[in-house]
């Protein structure tokens, strides 16, 4: 019924042109048209945040935006987070802190976390939790996610790639604990 429309947008730093119907959401355009399947479909009601992308600097649910609204916008998706040099600090910390299990919520959490740190480089634990409130996780219980974001913030702020276990509590990160355990096993 409605004709397809050409949309031009900057996606992950690249000028992109794609064809879509007005009824398609941005999430559909990203996944089905552009084959950027990193953003996930979780609820389609803006409750779970699995489809979170950053548009003109602000995190939003791509399931609640029409694809045609992307015209002229600057969009960052999970595919654009890692750089040629390597993973983003947030991604690195998620791995170190074991902040994912099935991983389906992870792209959304990373984009929300990136948007947070872009606006507020030194968030408190409360501010981190508030900023991530629009992202749901069924696997991890959130604790390791919050630690990873705090650790990433600290690392980015200090300008080094090595961080600590995060300001949330004292003690080693999950990977440091595993390291320690394995070393103890070797000694035995």
């Amino acid at each position, binding site marked *: 019924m409605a004709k397809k429309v050409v949309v031009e947008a900057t996606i992950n730093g690249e000028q992109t042109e794609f064809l879509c119907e007005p009824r398609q959401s941005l999430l559909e355009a990203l996944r089905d048209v552009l084959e950027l399947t990193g953003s996930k479909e979780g609820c389609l009601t803006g409750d779970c945040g699995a489809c979170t992308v950053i548009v003109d600097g602000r995190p939003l649910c791509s399931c609640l935006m029409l694809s045609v609204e992307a015209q002229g916008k600057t969009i960052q998706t999970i595919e654009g987070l890692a750089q040629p040099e390597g993973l983003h600090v947030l991604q690195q910390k998620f791995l170190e802190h074991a902040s994912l299990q099935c991983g389906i919520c992870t792209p959304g959490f990373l984009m929300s976390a990136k948007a947070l740190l872009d606006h507020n480089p030194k968030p408190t634990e409360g501010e981190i939790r508030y900023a991530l*409130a629009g992202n749901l996780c069924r696997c991890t219980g959130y604790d390791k996610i919050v630690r990873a974001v705090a650790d990433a913030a600290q690392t980015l702020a200090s300008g080094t790639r090595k961080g600590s276990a995060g300001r949330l509590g004292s003690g080693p990160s999950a990977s440091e604990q595993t390291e320690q355990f394995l070393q103890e096993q070797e000694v035995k």
Partner: protein
Amino acid sequence: MINSPAPGGLWALHAINYESPKTVDEAVKLLAAHGEQARPLCGGTDLIIQLRAGVRRPEYVVDIKNIREMRRIEFSMQHGLRLGAAVPCVEIYENGDMRKYYPGLTEAAHLIGSLQIQSRASVGGNLCNGSPAADTTPALIALGAKCRVVGPGGERLVPVEDFCTAPGRTVLQAGELLVEFQIPSPARNSSDAYLRFIPRNEMDIAVVGVGASVTLDLSDERISEARIGLAAVGPTPIFAREASQALSGKRISDETVERAAQFAIAAASPIDDMRGTAEFRRHITGVLTRRTVAKAIERARSTQTSR
């Protein structure tokens, strides 16, 4: 370029035409021309969900976010605030004037949904969706906001407490568009506050929401004026008129605040539902009224030095 391989699955929207007018006049013409077959699109955080569920099936979606007049936040101490109906919540709480002069409305905008929702959702959309639980409406009621509505027949100003007529229904007629809110300039020693009760920490729909604004006469330790708005305890957002009058002209004291809380409870007509019983909601109405009035008073005192 790659063509879409599939129509979007079970939850695809029906086919729509997308329009993006640049002026209010253009938008009103479109809405008037298509009547029930057109719906304004702002943040989409209510509309797109409704389209997906098939609750609404308009042929035309009229994007009003590109209309300058509806996107501006214009404040002066002289004229007060003109808040465009399409301003997203995030722009409200990032605005220094909004945080300073209308902290209650600002905190209400910062409570809706999540940050993702706030990047898109607007106060105008919050009101026009007509939910009795809308968070920003009690704060608007407390501020005495007027809604500037533009339609094919002309313009009118509607007091915000009269805007919603039933759950999901508003006074908007065919072709009419809510363009902006007009909010009075904050009087000396006045301020506002908004609190809500939800079972979790974020993301829930209000079980009870209360917005209050007070103007103080500090020479006499009295509340010269007050307004209280309630959410989620009736079929529409409520202006608690008697509770507001119970505060006017009275000494600032716990007894005064308690009287207002009792009147607020009487103004509420909540139902039992999965979020809470009517009895619980009445109780919480009292609690939140006390707290928001106290918070507004505290803020109003501290504006003496900052303005």
